[in-house]
C-alpha cells in the first residue's frame, strides 16, 4: 500500500511540475480574453471568428471562455477582484448595467464619438438599453424582447377569434380556455422583469422617472395584482408562470394545453422542440396589448481593467461587424442589433422559415414601447426586494395591499443605499 501511494504521489508531483513548468506565451504576443454567456452550442462559430481575427492580426491571441448563468457571477467577480477580468465580456439583461455601475466596464462613449459609423450600426432603442448615467457601456450582441405566443386551436375551441387587445381581454380569454387542472389560459415568464408588460399596460410604474422613489404602491397596482392573483387561483393563469423559470413555463406551453405564453423570442425554439403541435398554422404570434415588451438582450462590453483596450475594441467591433453578426443571425436565427445584418437575416428567413420570420419581426416593432428595463445600477437588489413580495401575492399567500407596502419599504431602502 505504501508503495502504491508513493508511486501515486510521485506521478502526481511529476505531472504537477510539468504543468507548472509549461512554457510561457512567446514574447510579443498580445492576448485578450473573451467571456461569453452560455453560447457554447456555437462553439464552431466562435472559434471560427477567433481564427479569422487572429489571422488578420498577427501576434494576437484570443482566449475564449464561456460560463453559464449561475456560474458567471462568481467567476467574473473573482476575476474582477484579482484584477484579471476578461477583456471583452458578454452579459445578459441588466447585468451589464450593474457591472457598469460597479465601475467594471469601460465607457464606450468616447470611442463612439470617434467612430460614429460604428455607433450607427446598431438599433438605437436596443443600444439605449445599456446607457447608464448618460454613457454607453455596451453594444448589442443579440437582442430579444417579449411577445405573445398563442395556441390557435385552443382559441378556436373556446370560440375566440383573435388574440387579446387589452388586459381585461387577457384575463377573460384566459378564463375561457381554462378547464380545471388540465388546461390554463395564460402563462408568462417571470425572471428579469419579463412580466412587467402586464403591469405597464395598466399604467403601473415601478419607480419615478428619476429612479429615486418607488411608484408602484398605488390602488391601481393593488387592483391589478389582486386580479392576477385571482386568475392564478382559478388556474386561468397557470401558477408555473410565477414559480417557474425557463424550462417549466416553456415546456408547459409546448405540452399544448396553455392558451397563451408571454415570453421572449428564444422561447419559440425551446417549446417548438417540446411540442409536436407547433406549426405555422397552429401557433399565433403577436404583441401584448399596448405593444409593451420587456427586452432581454445580450450585450458586449469591455472591462475597464483591460491591458489591451485598442485590441479589445477592435475585437468588439469585429464580432458585431457584418460578416460575423450575419453568421450568428442566420445560424442561431436571431437578431443581432446590427440593423443592416438584421434586415438581411429577416429577408433570408422570409424564404427559409416564415414562422421564425414572423416572430423575429415582432422584435423590431414598437421598440419605443420597451419597459421593465430601468437604468438601475442595483437592478438585482431591487428585483430581490420586489419580486418575492409580489410572488407571494400572485400565489395567494399574501394580500396585495400588505405585500406592496412591504415591497415599497424594501425597495425604498435599496434605493436609499449609495
Amino acid at each position: 500500500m505504501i508503495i502504491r501511494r508513493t508511486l501515486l504521489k510521485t506521478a502526481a508531483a511529476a505531472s504537477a511540475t510539468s504543468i507548472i513548468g509549461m512554457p510561457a506565451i512567446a514574447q510579443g504576443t498580445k492576448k485578450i480574453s473573451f467571456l461569453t454567456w452560455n453560447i457554447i452550442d456555437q462553439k464552431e462559430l466562435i472559434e471560427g471568428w477567433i481564427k479569422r481575427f487572429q489571422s488578420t492580426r498577427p501576434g494576437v491571441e484570443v482566449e475564449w471562455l464561456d460560463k453559464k448563468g449561475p456560474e458567471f457571477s462568481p467567476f467574473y467577480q473573482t476575476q474582477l477582484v484579482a484584477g484579471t477580468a476578461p477583456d471583452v465580456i458578454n452579459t445578459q439583461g441588466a447585468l451589464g448595467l450593474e457591472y457598469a455601475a460597479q465601475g467594471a466596464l469601460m465607457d464606450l462613449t468616447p470611442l463612439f464619438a470617434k467612430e460614429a459609423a460604428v455607433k450607427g450600426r446598431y438599433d438605437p432603442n436596443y443600444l439605449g438599453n445599456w446607457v447608464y448615467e448618460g454613457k454607453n457601456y455596451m453594444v448589442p450582441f443579440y437582442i430579444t424582447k417579449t411577445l405573445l405566443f398563442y395556441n390557435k386551436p385552443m382559441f378556436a375551441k373556446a370560440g375566440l377569434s383573435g388574440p387579446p387587445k387589452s388586459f381585461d381581454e387577457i384575463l377573460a380569454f384566459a378564463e375561457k380556455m381554462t378547464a380545471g387542472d388540465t388546461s390554463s389560459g395564460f402563462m408568462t415568464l417571470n425572471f428579469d422583469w419579463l412580466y412587467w408588460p402586464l403591469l405597464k399596460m395598466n399604467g403601473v410604474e415601478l419607480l419615478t422617472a428619476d429612479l429615486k422613489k418607488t411608484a408602484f404602491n398605488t390602488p391601481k397596482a393593488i387592483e391589478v395584482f389582486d386580479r392576477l392573483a385571482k386568475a392564478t387561483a382559478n388556474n386561468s393563469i397557470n401558477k408555473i408562470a410565477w414559480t417557474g423559470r425557463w424550462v417549466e413555463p416553456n415546456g408547459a406551453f409546448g405540452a399544448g394545453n396553455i392558451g397563451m405564453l408571454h415570453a421572449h423570442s428564444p422561447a419559440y425554439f425551446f417549446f417548438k422542440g417540446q411540442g409536436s403541435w407547433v406549426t405555422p398554422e397552429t401557433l399565433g404570434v403577436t404583441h401584448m396589448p399596448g405593444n409593451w415588451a420587456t427586452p432581454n438582450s445580450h450585450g458586449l462590453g469591455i472591462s475597464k481593467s483591460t491591458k489591451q483596450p485598442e485590441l479589445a475594441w477592435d475585437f468588439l467591433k469585429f464580432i458585431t461587424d457584418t460578416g460575423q453578426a450575419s453568421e450568428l443571425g442566420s445560424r442561431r436565427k436571431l437578431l443581432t442589433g446590427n440593423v443592416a445584418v438584421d434586415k438581411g437575416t429577416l429577408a433570408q428567413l422570409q424564404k427559409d422559415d416564415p414562422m421564425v420570420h414572423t416572430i423575429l419581426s415582432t422584435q423590431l416593432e414598437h421598440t419605443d414601447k420597451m419597459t421593465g428595463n430601468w437604468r438601475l445600477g442595483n437592478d438585482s437588489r431591487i428585483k430581490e426586494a420586489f419580486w418575492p413580495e409580489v410572488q407571494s401575492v400572485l400565489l395567494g399567500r399574501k394580500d396585495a395591499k400588505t405585500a406592496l407596502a412591504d415591497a415599497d419599504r424594501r425597495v425604498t431602502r435599496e434605493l436609499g443605499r449609495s
Partner: protein
Amino acid sequence: MASKGTQASWLGLRHLTLMVIAFLMLVPFYWVIKTAITNENIYAYPPNLLPQNPHLFNFVDVWYLIPFPRYLLNSIIVSAIAVAGNVVFNAMAGYALTRQFAGRNVVLALFLSCMLIPFQATIIPAYLITAKLGLLNTYFGLALPMLSTIICIFVFKAAFEAVPRSLIDAARLDGLSEWRIIMRVLMPLSKPAVATNVILTFIWSWNNFLWPLLITRDPLMQTLPLGLARFLSYMEDTTGALYAFAVMVLAPSILVFLMAQKEFIRGLTSGATKG
C-alpha cells in the same frame, strides 16, 4: 437461545426491510436511467414506467462533443493527488489528536470550527491566495484546498482511539518510533478508516465543481464534471441527455467505493484485539 424458526424469520425480516430500503433508494436511479436511454418528452403525463425505444445515443454523443478523455485524465490526476495527500496528512493529524498535549482542546476546537466555513464564503480569498502561490490553472492548485479534510481526520482519530492502548504501549516498549507505530500497528487495524478516507476524498475531489470552475482558464485543464456541466448548459434538462451525464459522472466514484468497500467486512482475524 432463539429457536431455528425465529432465527429464520428474523433473517427473513432483515432481508425484507433491506429490500424495501434498497427499492426506495433505487427508484430515482431507475427513473434517471430510464430517461437517459430514451428521448421522450420527460414532462408528458402520464409518464411511462418503462423506457420506450431505448438507445444509447446520449451516452455516445458526449464522447464527441467534449474532450472526454482529457477531462477524465484531469479528474483522475487531481483526485489521485487529493486522495494521496489526504490519507497521509489525515492519518498524521488524526494520530496527533489522540495524544495528550497542551492545547489539544484548542486544536480540536480549531479543526471543528474550520469545518463550519462554507466554500462559497471563501471563494474570493481562496482564489487570491492560490494566485499568489502561482498555482492557478495547475493540477496541484486544483487539489490543494482538498489535500486534507477535517471529517476524515476525525475518522482516523476515532479509529486510532479504538485500538487498545495495550498494543500501542507494547509497541513503544519494543522501541518502535512514532512513525512505525502508525504504520505497523495502527493503520493495519484501521483499514475501514483508510477505506473511508479514500472513498470520501475521492468523491469530494471528483465532484468538486465550483473550484475548478474558478481557477481553470485553459479549457484543457477542466475536470470531467465541469466539462460535462459546460456541455449541459444550453440543453437545460429537456431530454434524457442531462440524466445520462449525471449518471456518467457518478460511475467512477461508485467504482472506487466498490473496490474499497470490502474493507467494511469485519475481518475474521479480530484476534489482534483480544487480550
